[in-house]
C-alpha cells in the first residue's frame, strides 16, 4: 500500500472543473514530480492535500488510513507541509518569527526565543543552510524567502513536503542549492512532491512523475524509464497544433519598438532592465519566458499604465512618451491583457458595456457626450455572432459567462478596433481548445492583414505554432531571439530559466551579454 494516496479527487470551481477524478500515489522517501501545463490542476490538487481547498469528491489516505484535511492546521498535524509558489510569509516579521509562527516554543502564551533559535538553527544546520534570523522577510530576496518557507515546514515536523513551482523565482545556483536540500531531505526519509513544468528539473530530481492535463491525470511514469519527449507529449496532449501558418511572411515597417526600456514593479523593484524589441507589420513576435520576469510590466508600460523609468516606446510611428492610454489606442494599439478578469473585462457590467469601453467616447457609440445605446447594442450583437459567444443578450452581465466566452469578448473588442499592433498576453490561458484555435486564427488573420502582433506566452507550443520570431524574456530583458523555424524547445527552455546554452540553433541571437542584476533588489523601506 502506498504511503500517501489521493483517490478520485474531484474539485469544481464555478465554470471550471479543476480536478477531474484525479489519483495520486506517493511512496515514503520518494521525490515525486507533479507536472503539467499552467492550469492543468496541479496546484488545486496540492491545495486540497494541504487543506486549503476541500474536494467535492474523493478521499485522501495517509499510511493506509483515511484522513480528513479540512484546514492547513489539520495538514500540519498530519505532518504535511507546503512551500507555496507565492510565499506565505508575513513581510514585516523577522525570519525567525516567520519560521516559528503558529508553532512557537514556550509556555504561557510567550515565545521562548532561545529555544526557538536553537531549534531552528539545528534544522537549518542539518540542511546546510543559513539565514539572517533577525532580518525582516520583506528585506530578503526571493531565494532566502523560499528557504524560510522550507524551514517553516520542517520546523513543523513535516515529513511530507509539497513544493509548488519552487524554482520559478530562483536563480540557477539557488535552484541547484534547493535540489541539494530536497535530495538530503528525501534521504532522511521525507516524502517530497514537487510541482513544476520544467522538464529538466523533473528528470534530474524526481523518482516518479505524475503528469496532469486539463484537470486529469494524463499518465504516471518512472523517471528512469521516461524521456523529455514522453513527458512533453503527455503534458501537451495530442490535440494542439492544427493551425497552419501561411509560410514566412515578409515583415513590413516597424509598428512597435521598445528600446532600452526600464520600469519598476509595484513594490518599486526593477522589473524591466533595458528591454529592447521590435515588432513589424505582418509578423507575430512571440515573447517566451517564465511569468514574473517582467511580462506584465512590459505590457503595462506599452499601454501607458505604468510610468517607465527609462528608454523609449514607439507605437505605429509615434513616440509614446507622455501619451495617455487612450491616445496610444487611437494610434492603433490594442491589448489583450494577461489577467483578463482584472484588466480585460468588468464582470459586473453588461456585455454591451464591456464591448464599448475602448471607444464609447466617440462616434458612432456616442455623440456630444451622450451614448448611443442602439449603436452599442448593435456592436455587441455583431460580436456575439461573429465570435459565437454563448450569451443570451447584449445586456447579459459578463460575470455569468465562462472563461472561454469572456476571452472571446476581449479578443473581439480588441480586434474590432482595427489595430495596427496587438499585444496579446496569454490569450489562451484558461481557455478551451476550440476558443484557443479561434483566437489563434484571428491573430494569424491580423498578420495576414499586415498588422503586427506581440504574443506573450509561457506555452512554447502556442508560441511555436503561430509566431514568426521568438524572443526570450528573462529578468526584464530579452536574452535571446530565434526565427521560429530554427527554434528548439530545449534551447528556449534553457534561456527562459537563465541558462546559457552551449550550442545555438542557426539564426539565433543570444541577447544582451550584460551582467545579471540580482533578481530582486532589496525592498528595504
Amino acid at each position, binding site marked *: 500500500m502506498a504511503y500517501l494516496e489521493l483517490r478520485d479527487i474531484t474539485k469544481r470551481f464555478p465554470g471550471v472543473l479543476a480536478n477531474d477524478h484525479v489519483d495520486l500515489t506517493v511512496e515514503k522517501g520518494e521525490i515525486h514530480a507533479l507536472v503539467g501545463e499552467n492550469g492543468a490542476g496541479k496546484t488545486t490538487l496540492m491545495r486540497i492535500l494541504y487543506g486549503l481547498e476541500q474536494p467535492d469528491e474523493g478521499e485522501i489516505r495517509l499510511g493506509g488510513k483515511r484522513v480528513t484535511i479540512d484546514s492547513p492546521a489539520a495538514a500540519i498535524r498530519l505532518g504535511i507541509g507546503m512551500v507555496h509558489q507565492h510565499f506565505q510569509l508575513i513581510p514585516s516579521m523577522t525570519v525567525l518569527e516567520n519560521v516559528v509562527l503558529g508553532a512557537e516554543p514556550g509556555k504561557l502564551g510567550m515565545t521562548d526565543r532561545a529555544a526557538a533559535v536553537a531549534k531552528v538553527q539545528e534544522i537549518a544546520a542539518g540542511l546546510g543552510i543559513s539565514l539572517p534570523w533577525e532580518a525582516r522577510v520583506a528585506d530578503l530576496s526571493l531565494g532566502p524567502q523560499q528557504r524560510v518557507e522550507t524551514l517553516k515546514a520542517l520546523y513543523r515536523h513535516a515529513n511530507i513536503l509539497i513544493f509548488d513551482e519552487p524554482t520559478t523565482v530562483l536563480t540557477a545556483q539557488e535552484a541547484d542549492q534547493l535540489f541539494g536540500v530536497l535530495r538530503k531531505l528525501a534521504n532522511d526519509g521525507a516524502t517530497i512532491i514537487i510541482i513544476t513544468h520544467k522538464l529538466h528539473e523533473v528528470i534530474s530530481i524526481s523518482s516518479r512523475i505524475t503528469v496532469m492535463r486539463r484537470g486529469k491525470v494524463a499518465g504516471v511514469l518512472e523517471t528512469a524509464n521516461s524521456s523529455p519527449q514522453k513527458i512533453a507529449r503527455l503534458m501537451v496532449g495530442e490535440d494542439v497544433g492544427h493551425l497552419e501558418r501561411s509560410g514566412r511572411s515578409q515583415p513590413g515597417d516597424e509598428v512597435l519598438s521598445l528600446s532600452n526600456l526600464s520600469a519598476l514593479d509595484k513594490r518599486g523593484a526593477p522589473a524591466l532592465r533595458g528591454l529592447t524589441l521590435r515588432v513589424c507589420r505582418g509578423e507575430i513576435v512571440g515573447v517566451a519566458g517564465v511569468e514574473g520576469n517582467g511580462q506584465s510590466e512590459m505590457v503595462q508600460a506599452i499601454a501607458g499604465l505604468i510610468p517607465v523609468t527609462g528608454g523609449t516606446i514607439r507605437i505605429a510611428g509615434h513616440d509614446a512618451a507622455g501619451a495617455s*492610454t487612450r491616445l496610444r*489606442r487611437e494610434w492603433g494599439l490594442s491589448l489583450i491583457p494577461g489577467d483578463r478578469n482584472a484588466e480585460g473585462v*468588468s464582470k*459586473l457590467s453588461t456585455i454591451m*458595456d464591456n464591448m464599448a469601453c475602448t471607444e*464609447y467616447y466617440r462616434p458612432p457609440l456616442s455623440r456630444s*457626450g451622450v451614448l448611443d*445605446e442602439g449603436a452599442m447594442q448593435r456592436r455587441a450583437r455583431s460580436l456575439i455572432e461573429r465570435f459565437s459567444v454563448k450569451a443570451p443578450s447584449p445586456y447579459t452581465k459578463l460575470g455569468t459567462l*465562462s472563461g*472561454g466566452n469572456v476571452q472571446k469578448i476581449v479578443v473581439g473588442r480588441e480586434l474590432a478596433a482595427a489595430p495596427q499592433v496587438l499585444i496579446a498576453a496569454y490569450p489562451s490561458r484558461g481557455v478551451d481548445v476550440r476558443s484557443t484555435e479561434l483566437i489563434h486564427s484571428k491573430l494569424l488573420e491580423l498578420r495576414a492583414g499586415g498588422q503586427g502582433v506581440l504574443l506573450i506566452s509561457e506555452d512554447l507550443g502556442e508560441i511555436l505554432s503561430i509566431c514568426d520570431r521568438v524572443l526570450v524574456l528573462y529578468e526584464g530583458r530579452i536574452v535571446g531571439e530565434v526565427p521560429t523555424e530554427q527554434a528548439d524547445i530545449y534551447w528556449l527552455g534553457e534561456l527562459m530559466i537563465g541558462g546559457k546554452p552551449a550550442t545555438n540553433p542557426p539564426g539565433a541571437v543570444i541577447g544582451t551579454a550584460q551582467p545579471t542584476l540580482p533578481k530582486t533588489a532589496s525592498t528595504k523601506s
Partner: protein
Amino acid sequence: MAITDTPIQKPTSSLYDRLGPLGQSLAPFVLALVVGALVLTVTGKDALSTYTTIFQQAFLGVTNLADTLLFSTPLILTGVATVVAFRAGVFNVGVEGSLYLGAFMAAWVGFTWTGLPGFVVLPLAFILAGLVGALWAWVPAALKAYLQVDEVVTTLMLNYIAIFFTSFLVNGPFLAPGTANSMSPLVSSQAEVPHFMTSSQFNWSFVFAIALTLGLWWMLRRSTLGYAIRMVGDNARFAAASGISVARTIIYSMLLSGMVGGFAGAAQILGVNGRFIDNFSPGYGFQGITVALLAADQPLVIIPAAIFFGALTNGGGLVQLFSNIPIDLINVLQGTVMLFATTRLTLKWFRGRKARLTA
C-alpha cells in the same frame, strides 16, 4: 484549468439568492423592521400598532404626506451625492462635510445680499453652495486620485473639520447680532425656497431633488461621463487599460458628489431653517450613505429609500408625541439597515473594498 463551455454552475442557491433583485434591495428594510419590532416588543410596546401609527402619520393626509416628503428631501440629495461617488468606486463618507459648507455658503448669500430679487439670489445661493461643496470634496478626491490616500478616512475626518469650522464661523465672525445661540442671521425672505402650503414647510427643494435624481440616473446610464464612472466603479484596472482616465473620473464623480452635497445643505437652510444653525444636521450625510447603499445599483431607488426614512422621521416624531415611543427608534432602524446593507446582501462591488481597505 479546464474551462468548459457548459453554463456556469451556480453555487448552492441560498434563500437570499432566491429573493431576486427586488427582494434583495428590500431585505435590509424588512430585517430592520423586524429588529425594531423586537426592540419594541421586548420593551413592552406594541410593535404592530407603533408601525401602523407611524405609517398613518407619515402618509395619511396631505399635510402628513407633505411633511414626509419634506423630511425625505435632504436624504434624497445626500443619497444622490453619495451614489455618484460610490458608483465610481469612491467610498465617499464625506457628504456631511459638503453639506455643512454648502449650507453655510447658502446662508451667507441669503443674509448678505439681501437686496437681490429671488430669481437671482436663489440660484446664486445654490450655485455657490454647490461650488463650495464640490471644492471640499475635491480635496479627498485629489488625494485619492494622485496620491492614493484612502478616501474613507480623509472624508470622515473632513466632515468633522467642516462641522467645527462652520461652528466657528457662526460662533465668531457670523454670529447673528443679538443672539447668544450659535446661529447666523436670517436670510432675506427672497432667498427662501417657496413653500407649497402653509400647513407644512414642504417646498420646491423636493422637486429639485427629484429632478436631480432623474438627472443622475440619466447621466449614469446615458452620458459618456456616467459610462466612465460606472466602468471605473466596476473595475478600475479594466477601465484604465481601456483608456479611461481613472484619476480624472474619480475627481469628476467627487466634484459632482460634493456639489450635490452642497445643494443638500442649501436646500435645508433656504427651504426650512432660514439661517445657518450650528450643528443643524442630524446626520443627513450619514443617512445618505444608507440610502446610497440601498440604491447603488439602481439610482432611482434613492427616492423610495429616502421617503422610507423621511416617513420614519416624520411618523416617528408624532409617535413620540402621542405614544411615548422615543424617536430614537428611528436610529435603531437605520443602524440596522446599515448593518444589513452590505452583508451577504452586499451590493456586489462593495465586497472588493474590504480587502483593499484592510490591506
